[in-house]
């Protein structure tokens, strides 16, 4: 029984593995100062931006690739990557009609064109999308509607041109270019990304979203997202991603920074579905991402929600620095690994301000030959009085060839802090399955039901549209992994 279902699942293909035939404007392979100057010139960047890149690059050259994560892979050859790939023709697009029809088809296949279509037919939707294709932002929708409220939501390159003062002020604040190997690499070669600024007292009327797709072969994707919520502002931000099916490993090294001012709140949700490689573990995306938010001022809140189902190797720790007093950090995560996928993911909560609170809920599910690790740090600095943290990491194992691991680090330097951590590892209970089957629910559906129940705490945190997608993804990723 188990074998049958497992077989079926293993044969399941990656649904988003198509490539799109679009001529791309590419830089030559390799990485040196000239390439960085080339990227910078291509994007018509001001001098200070080039300086930022070069400084990061010089730092990166002295850095060593980290090896502490519980993953094993062949290190990428950084000279064998194309650092700039933009779909042609690259001109300013006024309306969707001007977008390459091939590109539109791609998005239709990805299932994200609905919003666009609705917009065209005049139907209001509540999501504004920024689409990043091979590191270059293609189209941002609803820009005008948002502009009325004073919200700036555009591609990173546009922000550099139109709002240099904001970019200059906030870029590198949460993730300095010297932070780590991949953040430094990103800072040197990032090609585009999304930029979002919510002014004082504004609640974003709709959910903002970025959709990332790697298309060209031999390229790496290095995008950068910067979200700033000024005093009393609120925004819910979504991120999605897919990539074509290729035998090679492609590198995705992104940086996401969030900055919240007084009483502001940012909710960041990700459904990560990069190509995970085939059932032999060949190909797939290396997802080495640095995500960090700073609760800069009092009473602010940053919340990360992630559903991780893709990538061959994931190395990702969305973190919150709780600097302002009474600030709140949250991390909700579901990470699913199957076949030969490896995930080392978790969070860091750094408590600096007084009365700061953080919650970590992490649910790991491993199947096939995969390895799934939670790695987290909770740090209560001296003087962070009455800090409070609760962490819970559960792992679910499906099959006897996979692994589930937890590596929590807890460092406390304040006596008024209360920190709790608990973790469990188990498999789907026979009794739970039996209970469902007894009520006429077949094995497959019962597993789906139990897994969804297991992840409920996290899925509940996702915005409606994403929750549906996430549940579907979970079901596909795990179909019949247990008998």
């Amino acid at each position: 029984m188990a074998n049958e279902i497992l077989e079926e699942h293993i044969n399941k293909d990656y649904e988003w593995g198509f490539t799109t035939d679009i001529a791309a404007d590419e830089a030559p392979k390799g990485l040196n100062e000239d390439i960085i100057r080339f990227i910078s010139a291509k994007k018509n960047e001001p001098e200070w931006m080039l300086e930022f890149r070069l400084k990061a690059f010089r730092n990166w050259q002295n850095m060593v690739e980290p090896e502490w994560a519980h993953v094993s892979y062949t290190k990428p050859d950084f000279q064998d990557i194309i650092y700039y790939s933009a779909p042609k023709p690259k001109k300013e697009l006024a309306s969707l009609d001007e977008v390459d029809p091939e590109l539109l088809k791609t998005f239709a296949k990805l299932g994200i064109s609905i919003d666009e279509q609705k917009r065209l037919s005049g139907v209001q939707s509540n999501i504004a999308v920024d689409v990043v294709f091979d590191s270059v932002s293609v189209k941002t929708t609803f820009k005008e509607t948002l502009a009325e409220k004073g919200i700036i939501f555009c591609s990173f390159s546009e922000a550099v041109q139109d709002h240099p003062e904001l970019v200059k002020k906030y870029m590198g604040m949460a993730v300095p270019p010297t932070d780590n190997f991949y953040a430094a690499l990103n800072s040197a070669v990032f090609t585009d990304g999304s930029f979002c600024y919510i002014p004082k007292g504004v609640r974003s009327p709709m959910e903002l979203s970025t959709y990332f797709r790697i298309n060209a072969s031999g390229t790496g994707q290095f995008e950068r997202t910067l979200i700033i919520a000024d005093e009393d502002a609120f925004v819910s931000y979504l991120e999605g991603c897919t990539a074509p099916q290729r035998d090679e490993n492609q590198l995705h090294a992104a940086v996401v920074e969030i900055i919240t001012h007084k009483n502001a709140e940012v909710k960041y949700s990700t459904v990560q579905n990069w190509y995970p490689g085939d059932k032999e573990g060949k190909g797939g995306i290396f997802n080495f991402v640095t995500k960090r938010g700073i609760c800069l001022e009092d009473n602010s809140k940053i919340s990360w929600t992630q559903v991780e189902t893709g990538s061959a190797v994931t190395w990702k720790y969305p973190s919150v620095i709780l600097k302002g007093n009474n600030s709140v950090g949250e991390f909700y995560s579901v990470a699913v690994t199957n076949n030969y996928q490896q995930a080392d993911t978790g969070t860091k909560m750094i408590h600096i301000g007084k009365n700061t609170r953080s919650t970590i809920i992490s649910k790991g599910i491993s199947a096939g030959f995969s390895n799934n690790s939670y790695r987290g740090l909770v740090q209560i600095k001296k003087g962070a009085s009455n800090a409070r943290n609760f962490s819970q990491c559960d792992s679910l194992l499906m099959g006897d060839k996979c692994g589930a691991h937890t590596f929590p680090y807890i460092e406390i330097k304040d006596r008024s802090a209360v920190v709790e951590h608990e973790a469990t590892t188990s498999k789907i209970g026979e009794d739970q399955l039996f209970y469902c089957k007894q009520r006429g629910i077949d094995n497959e559906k019962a597993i789906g039901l139990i897994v969804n129940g297991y992840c409920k705490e996290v899925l509940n945190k996702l915005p409606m549209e994403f929750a549906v997608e996430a549940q579907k993804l979970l079901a596909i990723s795990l179909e019949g992994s247990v008998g």
Partner: protein
Amino acid sequence: MSLVAENKSAVTQNLLEQLQKNSSKIAFMPDTEIVSAIRILEDKGIPNNKHEDYKYCNIEAVLRKEFKTVEQSFNELTNADIAPLKIEEAINLVVVNGNYNEALSEKMIVKGLTVKSLNELSSSEKGLLSSQAKSDTDALIALNTAFTGNGLFLQVDKNNIIPMPLHVIYVNSGNSSNVTNTRNFVNIQASAEVTLIESFYNIGTAKVFSNFVSEKFVGENAKLTCYTFQNEGALSYSVNTNQVKISKYSNYTNNTFTLSGELVRNNHNVVLADSNCEAHLNGLFISNGTQSVDNHTLIDHQMPHCESNELYKGIAKDKSVGTFNGKIFVRKDAQKTNAYQSSKNILMSDDATINTKPQLEIYADDVKCSHGTSTGKIDTEALFYLKARGIGDESARKLLLQAFAQELIDKIEIPSLQERVLHLFEKAL
């Protein structure tokens, strides 16, 4: 980069030079073992905080700062020095500066019990040494192997139950900066049973770096109950490695009580090598001043139907640092494993630090593994309850801390040891 690498080996090289000056030939350890241990030590270097397992316990820095020169000169000890350390219900054995001291030990003939020094091992018994604690797993085991003292060999023969506990007193007595490498081997054969108390003291007048390695083997259906009692004082920096392997149907328990010592690092590594065995590790520490106490456990579940339990509690006062790093490793074949780990700590001052790192590494699916850790302050409501009943602030706090620790102190089944722990614990409060 290269500069850092050179500095790193400098501490190790200096230590090697200092120790080689004073060392004599170790007859019971094969030369090949010693040579490879030195090579491993040179390669790996003494661990510092860059080393994942020693992240919160920088041994290299201690050696660099406190043990630049190692003179290895010791005071002679007499019966009078040892007498207060003895436990009356037990057979007291004494190991001084890493060497088994027969003259100071109590002599008693017990059926099925063998007590001798490592020098007196038969050639087949010599083969046991380094069978559990392998030099390549930890540079400090390599250091011990290369410069090991004439330690103790304890064996309980098949089917023998030793009626009274054995008490091994490890005492250091240096009068200049010293490094002692104490080693022992405890061999509990099939269906045998014994209780072993291991106490650690330093009655010397100078700083000592005590690098202790104990290899313990528990045979089929055998039972070994251990107590580790650490009261080494402010001059002592110690690393204690317990490398234990347990067999089918066997039962191993260790209760560790750390009451003083400037730096105390405990490595409890237990390999559950066959099915249906149990391991229980418990620990309690109270630290003050600039002390650092680091309990590190590694439970390696290799076979199915085994159980392990861990409970560690700590109270950190003043500027002290308490660390718990526990790892449960469940291998592919270890189905039906039941593993539980819990660490609870109380911080008594804003300058104190608690680091915890409970780890699970699991490769089998039909298992129940969990860990929990919590760190906090004294429950203010409980404190209020007591104060409302006319108990003063200080005594109320003491009462609550005692209640916190009682669970572990209650695990001691030897009355005079329990009394000793309780007395020192209360004093430390």
